[in-house]
């Protein structure tokens, strides 16, 4: 999805940090129990924070799937994840993952493949609760999928997208401007300049769009909302539904509002009638 040499300029460090805290979920932020074994013989059991692990009952890994669940259940209060690794499988896994690389391959495609490949190695490599591909490495809480769909299906080549979250009426909590090149790759990543918004974002957001049009290239999709709205959406079981509702009741301002997105929401409304 990223172009070969994207321009990542004038990123506001506070906004960037906030974007990370909202959407990125590194595996290292979770408490993990890891068991390394070889054909069932346990070689190492560790907790990522050095906490005690209850495994007295475990002499050997006989059924990795079952044993992983039991370890998790017995240590639930001290762990988010249990990782069970047969060391030979992990060695093979890396070799296979690396074999898919080509210079043309995009970073996200490579990383997603790498994560998905872990599922193929189940139960020799397990991250529980799983699936492994949804827990491994750096996860983005759906942000990557959303951007991918928007870039591919909603906006046109040679356009920009802006996403801006406000802490109050005027302070930008986080923002992201993405420029899409002719090959539908992201070739620009930057932040909204805070100086554009001084009093009320609902009245001034169009200035952001003008600034983007002048500074970069035409904006195809703008999404503006308060942080409280985003927090509510992210807590909701059905993020899609709560997003569409927030758009419909103008908690989220979408401007420009591409026709393709409008039709998705119209379909959603009709579906609602059923």
């Amino acid at each position: 999805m990223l172009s070969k040499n994207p321009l990542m300029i004038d990123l506001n460090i506070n906004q960037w940090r906030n974007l990370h805290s909202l959407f990125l979920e590194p595996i290292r932020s979770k408490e993990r129990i890891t068991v390394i074994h070889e054909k069932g013989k346990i070689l190492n059991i560790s907790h990522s924070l050095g906490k005690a692990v209850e495994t007295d009952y475990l002499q050997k890994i006989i059924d990795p799937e079952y044993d992983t669940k039991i370890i998790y259940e017995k240590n639930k209060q001290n762990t988010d994840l249990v990782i069970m690794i047969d060391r030979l499988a992990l060695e093979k896994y890396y070799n296979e993952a690396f074999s898919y690389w080509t210079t043309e391959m995009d970073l996200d495609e490579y990383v997603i493949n790498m994560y998905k490949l872990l599922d193929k190695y189940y139960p020799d490599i397990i991250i529980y609760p799983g699936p492994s591909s949804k827990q491994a490495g750096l996860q983005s809480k759906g942000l990557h999928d959303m951007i991918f769909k928007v870039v591919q299906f909603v906006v046109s080549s040679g356009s920009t997208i802006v996403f801006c979250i406000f802490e109050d009426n005027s302070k930008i909590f986080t923002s992201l401007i993405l420029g899409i090149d002719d090959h539908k790759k992201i070739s620009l990543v930057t932040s909204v300049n805070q100086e554009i918004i001084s009093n009320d974002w609902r009245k001034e957001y169009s200035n952001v769009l003008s600034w983007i049009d002048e500074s970069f290239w035409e904006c195809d999709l703008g999404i503006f909302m308060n942080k409280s709205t985003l927090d509510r959406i992210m807590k909701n079981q059905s993020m899609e539904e709560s997003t569409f509702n927030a758009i419909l009741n103008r908690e989220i301002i979408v401007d420009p509002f591409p026709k393709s997105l409008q039709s998705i929401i119209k379909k959603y409304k009709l579906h609602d009638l059923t």
Partner: protein
Amino acid sequence: MQNNIEIKGKQMVIDKKTLKNYGGSVHYWRSRPEDWEKILEEVKKLGINLITTYIPWEIHEVKENVFDFGGSKNVDAFLSLCSKKGFNIMVRPGPQINSEMTWFGFPERILENPDLQAKNPFGGKVILTQVPKPIPALSYASPEFFKEVETWYDAICPILKNHLFPRGNIIGVQVDNELGYFFNVNPYTCDYSTASIELYRRFIYEKYGTLENLNKIYKCNYSNFHEIVPPVRFEGTSKNDLPYYLDWIEYREYYLIHSLEILSNLLKDRGIDVPIYHNYPHPLGPGGATGAPSTPFNIPKLEEKIDFVGFDIYSRKELYDHVKTISSYVSGCSRYPFIPEFITGVWPWYINPGDVEDEIFDTKAVLMHGIKGFNRYMIVDRNKWLGSPINREGIKNKKPYELHNKVQDLLNKLPIENMEKKCDIMLLTNRDYDRLEAATALIPVYGDFLDPILGFSEYPNTSYISNNSFDFKEPIQINKTHWFEEYYNYLSSEGYTFEIGDSELTVSKMKEYKIVIISTFEYLSEELTRKLIEYVKDGGNLIIGPNVPSFNELMTPSNDFKNFIESIKKIDICSENGMEIVGTKYFDNRSNGSIILVPDLKTIQKNLSNIFKELDVYKINKKPKQVDAILYESVNGENILFLCNPSSETVDTEVILSEKSISCYEIWDNIEYKLYKGVLRLNLEPYTIKIFDIKVN
């Protein structure tokens, strides 16, 4: 001596003048040439006098062996402008530069060439997940690779030559960048390329000399050195199995030193005669490690080949102990303690980046622990970098600019480069056991710039090394860390200033300290045993334990240490109340040197408190324990005291200074503190470092 530039006594000296090398990175090709003047002016106003820049092969080679040095790529013009503005310059022509570039600074054709790639144990590629494109690790053992580098050096060195001091202002050239298997520090990841295996065999041959010697140690029956294959995973079960794996770990150090020596010779052959230096990678980098950085990096050995070596530092203030460890280690090991990349702003894929407050805290922390120069990476924002004091067009980024301006004022005022840390103790990290820790890694962990796929650090640690004891009393590869940490914590909390060193250091370096502390278990390399005995024979006080080693690194019996100990006088060490024997002291009447054997981790405090009193070891009387304190002295009698609160809570702090102290002025905040009979009392805010100028009567 190269030109008039000398590296000596932890200083860089030109014409007898010690340089204040507090520099910043500016990337000429990432700005418009018309903006260079304005950018450099702002950097100058900030108080910086040293510019560093990478020079990317990736950018200058437009097609194979055709180079472009025009427009924004006109490095010659940029260097001339830097000189005109009065900056000293350090350049970093790679070949590898990372620099947040798509291909890590290499032309794409170099990375694509399978003959130049490093290999994993299965013979496949090794891919580093970096942004914006994953890239393959290259083999720095490949002769073809060096031939390719020669074409790049042939293109760039004539330009650099014109700017070398004294003709120009280049005072240092960095060879390559963060060389460490492309962040594949873990020993069983790479490099298993044909060229690397050949180099490994050469290393084994140099080490053992004859097949007879090798076969005896490996318990094998090789008929030719070419039959030897390196280990691809750890499968040792007894101590006799270990040398085979330990040799691979030692080879990985050799590989890095060997390739950097070749590269630096290529530079020298092309007329580069200013100091050549290197930066090992930030050991908390993707994956992270917290201990002293040892294998596969080796500052003392690499400094036998090039002029100086540092570690890069990118840390948030919460990781004070990490910054302290790295700074103190570089200060203890390098002939010029310089941080070639020191956090200023961040790259976009640094998860949850810090801010300028972390940078200011870290700056004070590295000065506190012995660093004499650094390069702020980056002082100017550019593509794929954010949060620096100056933006890509030369416009000030207000808050970072103001704080960096203030810190530069401090650096220009503070004569730290001419001052010495008042310190009697060197705490050595024992490379023999660090190698064992690496050798016993059970799984490969590959470098990853996002987040490691299963959460492991690429630096082997207790979470994935073997816990086997290998016929020893305890798992040395695990317990060595507990001993190091216990000493570190004891010395820090009691106010005993120490420098961290490496067992690879020379005896003459060890002799600079009244006390040398090193953990010793049942085996120790013969070379290290020899050095430690020599240190004691020359009057040094050596603290060892828990065991007197009785095997060497080849796991054959060796009684050198034991014999030496038995040849000198034995004295029991009693606890402070005299009720308990807690350790043993061996005293050499001829030299007044001694060996203190601490038999148990839990008795470190009991053993050392009396011994340190007896030896009159320098300590700063301070409380509470979590406050860290270091005193610097100059030959002119100036005293600078650093006080650090590395915790998240405000602490009431008290420091008992010499009664001769008459005034105490805090340099950062410009506040005079009152002393009551030489006692300094103050509240230290969370994550604060105060710097006091102490005047003595």
